[in-house]
């Protein structure tokens, strides 16, 4: 029957690229960009130097730059980017809404608030894990609030409005914390951290955030089939044997763990979770389950590339990564809104 189907098919052309090929291509892009990321910056480092220094552990200036500055930055670009891409795809699958994005619906903002509170109260100084845990707690509250306000069969409008509300609230509280800050220098620090950046991070940041992120990834990546089933609505998904309550809880907790930990080390990097799933969705033929893994990989690719770009495009002070993704992402979001309006007519 499939041969008949192929000849009779008159819809738009099917994607030419298979799922495995797509995963391999994205993985190769990550490896290449990772190496470029270590090489890029004020001090140019050649590939040979990167490999020899990573192998030998010699205490030269070059290997200090690589191990303490460039390597953590490249690793965080991969983990944070993967988190944002994956969380975007998972939230969009759960809410069946292409505009659900951790930054846009206030999850990143609340995670930032959680981290700021840890910072502000000084708890983060007493034990290091407090910062990412604060981020996770903030993100958890945000995802739960969004789900309560706009979950179920929500329209795009309700979701975005709920996001605006959560974002505004988190923003207000963060500003409050900033304005009450006894030390103006600390407030300045927090302000720049909020803009989202991967500069000047250490391997410590990687160790702190990676376990929580990895746990979140596992929770989200195993949701593929449930999200596929949800395409047909909640009742049908139930009738196909999925426990809706468990599915919802797993996506909410997975997103909170991964995004909360990511935001705690990188600040708010917006729009990655919006742009990446949208671009990759046609390539996996709109299957929400398959979109998860490729969005994670795609998020890492985009974040690595953007983080290389902020180091390369300006001579003066480095552009913040979150600013760059917003500069690209906001017009893209506008474009999506216009597309959605057209589709609704």
């Amino acid at each position, binding site marked *: *029957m*499939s041969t008949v189907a192929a000849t009779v098919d008159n819809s738009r052309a099917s994607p030419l690229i298979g799922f495995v090929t797509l995963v391999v291509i994205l993985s190769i892009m990550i490896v290449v960009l990772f190496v470029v990321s270590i090489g890029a910056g004020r001090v140019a480092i050649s590939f040979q130097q990167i490999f020899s220094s990573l192998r030998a552990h010699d205490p030269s200036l070059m290997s200090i730059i690589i191990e303490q500055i460039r390597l953590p930055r490249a690793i965080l670009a991969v983990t944070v980017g993967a988190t944002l891409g994956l969380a975007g795809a998972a939230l969009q699958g759960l809410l069946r809404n292409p505009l659900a994005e951790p930054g846009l619906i206030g999850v990143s903002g609340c995670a930032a608030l959680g981290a700021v509170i840890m910072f502000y109260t000084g708890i983060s100084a007493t034990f290091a894990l407090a910062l990412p845990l604060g981020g996770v707690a903030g993100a958890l509250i945000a995802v739960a609030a969004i789900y309560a306000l706009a979950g179920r069969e929500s329209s795009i409008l309700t979701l975005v409005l709920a996001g605006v509300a959560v974002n505004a609230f988190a923003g207000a509280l963060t500003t409050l914390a900033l304005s009450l800050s006894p030390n103006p220098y600390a407030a300045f620090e927090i302000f720049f951290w909020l803009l989202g950046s991967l500069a000047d991070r250490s391997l410590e940041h990687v160790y702190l955030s990676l376990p929580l992120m990895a746990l979140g990834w596992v929770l989200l990546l195993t949701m593929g089939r449930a999200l596929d089933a949800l395409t*047909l609505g909640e009742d049908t998904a*139930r009738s196909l*044997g999925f426990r809706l309550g468990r599915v919802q809880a797993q996506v909410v907790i997975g997103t909170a763990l991964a995004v909360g930990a990511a935001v705690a080390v990188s600040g708010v990097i917006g729009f990655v979770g919006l742009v990446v799933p949208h671009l990759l969705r046609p390539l996996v033929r709109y*299957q929400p389950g398959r979109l998860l893994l490729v969005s994670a990989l795609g998020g890492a690719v985009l974040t690595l590339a953007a983080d290389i770009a902020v180091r390369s495009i300006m001579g003066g002070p480095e552009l913040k990564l979150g600013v760059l993704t917003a500069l690209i992402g906001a017009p893209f979001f506008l474009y999506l809104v216009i597309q959605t309006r057209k589709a609704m007519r």
Partner: protein
Amino acid sequence: MSTLTVHDLSVGFGNRQVLDKVNVSFSTGSLVGLIGPNGAGKTTLLRSMIGAQSFAKGQIQWDGSDLHQLDRRTVARHIAYLPQGGVCHWPLTVEHLVSLGRLPHQSPWQKQSAEDRRVIADAMAETDIGALAQRTVTTLSGGERMRVLLARALATSPEMLLADEPVASLDPYHQLQVMTLLQSMARRGVGVVVVLHDLTLAARFCDRLVLLSEGRVIGDGTPDDVLSVENLAASYRVTALRGSENGEPFIVPWKDLGNDFEREKR
């Protein structure tokens, strides 16, 4: 033969009693029409029978065991559900959408087996959508879309299919086609419960009708018995023209009894 039994089921939304002590049972191998006016509780009854509706009182049993005690995936393999409206949130390909019906038969990381592929191909052949396999769902007409969703339910190979108004948005040709398909499923041993508004389709195709009105079962039996003048007046508040063509009945709603009837009842 398997049986889905509803005991004393009561469901309320706030102050409104949607189902009131409903007792009814459905067996495999027959096509049962679930009829009744808007708001009678038909959808609520179907949703209760797949475990999507919580209820205050009553019990639902599959072959004697409480539905809520059974493993969800096991229930999913036995009972398929086709909701009203034909929702599909993403523009999936027809083939992928139909393959979702196999989910209850696959363990989480298992790939499609030869058996899965065979059942999917059969379901698509039976609903005559083979030619649409690579089309995206959003490009289909209403009739094609309903057939695709029906194929998804068939792909589950259920013992019982609960279909909520599957012919509501279809033209007469496709209505007859879907009803014939449901009838042939019943002949092959599947239990089919179908919500219908068209009384002729109900009278012609169904082995048995269950008439719901204001949350209660007021008729349960052969189409002849259930579609009596009194029952139609009490539930739908209409009179109907009746007749037969080649021994098969038709029944056409004719006049609403409207306010006069309401007044007389008081």
